[in-house]
């Protein structure tokens, strides 16, 4: 049977495709590549940290490694992964549309991502950038002797890709829902993609502007951020975090959406508290814009600002807590199967909750002053980003893999990988909470010998983690070609995306799908 994969095998048909599903696959390949580049950098960092002294790389190289890791992971993996891979593939299918509202814009957005990636890769080849992914001024503008401009141009272009994607999703969700699919019948994944798109559209321009200002100050010497030139370095931090904090929610919201799809399917019952989960996504998207100052508690901003941002940071945690409680309640009176995607969903809930709870510790002013810029923060955001977002992404990838490829992955290996990842993750990042509380600052190439034992445990965790990431890479690649074929709806899942064949035809639905009475009509 003809489907979107086998309708045309030419390279041209891939590189000039406007089919959202094919663009989703293009993104899948590119973000996987970015992930492995970022991971190699992380691996080298952890290897260097096995001993307190500098032995593997020089300080200059070490600083370039963690910058590379941050830049690539944040802008070329975490932000695009769920929206651009799963979102691209699923949004039209889930709302019964033929494609996104602007298919060609969608392709342009992938090319933007690619061009941005090439700039960033060029930076890497030429010798790297050493500012940290945060580009704090005046270091980045007046002191760093590395490829700052090339990197910010790369990120700027990738940012355009984000904006186009966000715009495309918002218009699609407003305009292309199949008749009868009202807002409160939409899958919760669509709600989170909608919230994410709002942030992409509203916050990314601020990042673009800020990066341009860095470029202007660096090239022309016009004082914007450097006090020696008449600028203000805190202005940069305000602008940067005004984007970069909401960006955290760009990364985690779609992950929450994925979990909200997996849980009802493998509990085989409708989700509990649909409206609360839906509204909490919107609440997170809005409140997420009002908490950026919690990155600046020790920066020298006013004490009043510290207080305001502290309480707002507590408030933004409430909708996340609501989601977790509703997910747990969804298990009640369900019929639960422990398939691979469900294992990932469970891992997500555990790790995200730990990440969230340690976030509360960071929102508490007096404690943040101590653990700010230490490994405690590193551990906290990796619990959210890797434990939360990457876990959800992998869960989603497994869940919709049969839909995307028409093939199954080996279930046994899937479970092994999920469990390996979970334990690898905990072994890697749990010790970093202790390191942080004991006073180990972040971005340290060499450190006091007293921290070594915890660093060794953390580095050992990376080995387990690496196995956990390589397994899916291997068996999913294998499955794409050789995996056993599957029926259209192997999970017995609900949702419009399962109302068509797996993999779907180019036009998504051969006959108009029937809109169910409610979402998750199990």
């Amino acid at each position: 049977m003809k489907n979107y994969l086998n309708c045309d095998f030419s390279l041209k048909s891939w590189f000039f495709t406007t089919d959202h599903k094919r663009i989703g696959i293009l993104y899948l390949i590119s973000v996987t590549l970015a992930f492995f580049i970022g991971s190699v950098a992380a691996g080298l960092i952890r290897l260097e940290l096995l001993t307190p002294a500098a032995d593997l790389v020089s300080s200059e190289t070490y600083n370039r490694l963690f910058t590379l890791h941050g830049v690539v992971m944040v802008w070329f993996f975490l932000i695009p992964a769920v929206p651009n891979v799963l979102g691209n593939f699923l949004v039209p299918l889930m709302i019964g549309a033929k494609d996104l509202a602007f298919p060609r814009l969608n392709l342009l957005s992938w090319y933007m991502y690619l061009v941005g990636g090439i700039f960033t890769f060029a930076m890497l080849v030429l010798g790297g950038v050493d500012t940290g992914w945060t580009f704090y001024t005046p270091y980045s503008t007046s002191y760093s002797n590395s490829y700052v401009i090339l990197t910010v141009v790369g990120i700027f272009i990738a940012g355009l890709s984000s904006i186009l994607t966000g715009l495309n999703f918002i218009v699609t969700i407003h305009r292309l829902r199949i008749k009868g699919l009202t807002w409160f019948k939409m899958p919760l994944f669509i709600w989170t993609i909608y919230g994410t798109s709002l942030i992409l559209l509203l916050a990314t321009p601020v990042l673009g502007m800020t990066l341009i200002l860095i470029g202007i100050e660096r090239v022309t010497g016009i004082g914007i951020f450097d006090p020696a030139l008449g600028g203000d370095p805190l202005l940069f931090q305000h602008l940067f975090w005004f984007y970069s904090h909401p960006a955290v929610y760009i990364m985690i919201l779609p992950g929450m959406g994925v979990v909200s799809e997996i849980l009802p399917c493998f509990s085989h019952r409708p989700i509990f508290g649909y409206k609360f989960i839906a509204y909490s996504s919107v609440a997170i998207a809005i409140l997420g814009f009002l908490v950026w100052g919690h990155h600046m508690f020790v920066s020298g901003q006013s004490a009043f600002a510290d207080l305001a941002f502290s309480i707002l940071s507590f408030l933004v945690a409430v909708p996340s807590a609501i989601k977790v409680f509703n997910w747990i309640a969804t298990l009640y009176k369900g019929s639960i199967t422990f398939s691979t995607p469900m294992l990932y969903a469970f891992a997500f809930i555990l790790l995200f909750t730990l990440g969230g709870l340690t976030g509360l510790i960071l929102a508490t002013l007096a404690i943040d002053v101590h653990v700010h810029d230490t490994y405690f923060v590193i551990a906290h955001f990796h619990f959210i980003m890797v434990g939360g977002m990457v876990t959800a992404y992998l869960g989603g990838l497994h869940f919709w893999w049969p839909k995307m490829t028409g093939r199954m992955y080996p279930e046994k290996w899937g479970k092994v990988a999920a469990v390996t990842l979970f334990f690898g993750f905990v072994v890697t990042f749990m010790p970093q909470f202790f390191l942080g509380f004991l006073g180990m600052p972040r971005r340290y190439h060499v450190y006091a010998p007293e921290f070594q034992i915890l660093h060794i445990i953390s580095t050992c965790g990376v080995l387990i983690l690496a196995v956990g990431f390589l397994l899916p890479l291997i068996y999913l690649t294998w499955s794409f070609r050789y995996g056993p074929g599957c029926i259209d709806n192997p999970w017995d899942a609900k949702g419009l995306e399962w109302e068509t064949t797996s993999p779907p035809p180019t036009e998504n639905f051969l006959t108009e799908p029937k809109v169910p009475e409610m979402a998750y009509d199990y």
Partner: protein
Amino acid sequence: MIFEASDLSREVDTLFLAIIFVCGIVFFGIVAAMLYLSLKYKKDKLIDRSSPPLKNLKLELSWTLPTLLIFLIFFVWGAQLYRNSHEDQAVSQEIFVTGKQWMWKFQHPGGQKEIDELHLPVGEPVKLIMISEDVIHSFFLPDFRIKQDLLPGRYTKLIFTPNKTGTFRIYCSQYCGARHSYMLGKVIIQSKIEFDSWRESRPVWSSGSQNLNAGQKVFTKYGCNACHSIRPKDVLDENLSGPTLWNLYQSKVTLHDGKVITADENYIRESIFHPNAKVVKGFSPQMPTFEGLIPEEEMQALQTYMKSLRAGYP
């Protein structure tokens, strides 16, 4: 090894443990509920699954409101502690800290200077007035549970009271370039007697015998006295074109646009480097800038001198 080297350390640790305790209970509650429910309702179990509930407002409120309440308690507790420890107060130990790639420079009120080492007496509150000469650094004292960024071009402050003698770590915790992880130091807390004898033994590096005298010299070196009086307004000097500096520090100053500000270290610094930024009411903007002319060390001596211009000093 981490120490509790101030009262604040203990209070922060108590709060930290309290939050960990509450979060621990919540987390294990979630784990227990997840395990219990997912095993109880495992697919192959024969169990009543009829009409699973889809929503329950009371239940939603019963987990949202307590969550909110607990969050508010954490917030108030943390904010209170933060406010108490950040309250600006007059202290006898006022020390200038200068961060630069990649070292810490300290200047005691008596003019004694140290690099990467800071001697302090136990039990006496100390105020650090900090500035960076290049990029942003952060002064991190893990054993005192405090840190504060150092900005170029502007002073930030840190106040704490050591309650233990011993040697404690100083880290730079804001990434500042190639040798960021080598930007370390020690704070050495001594008994009052030991500290005093240490202080006596130190040579005073400033040109004068004291920081204060050094400041006075800087004051005349740059010709500040040509326009600024250092005596009370009603005494003399009506013909000088600038406002008097007598009693300036910590006083309320009315600017030409009617705004009233407090003359702190940052105001004094700004008025020397950017004289037109805040012009005092009744004066014309005619002072030249001294930016790039006065090095940080002289600026710090000058600050000390300004503070001395009041009745009853010290």
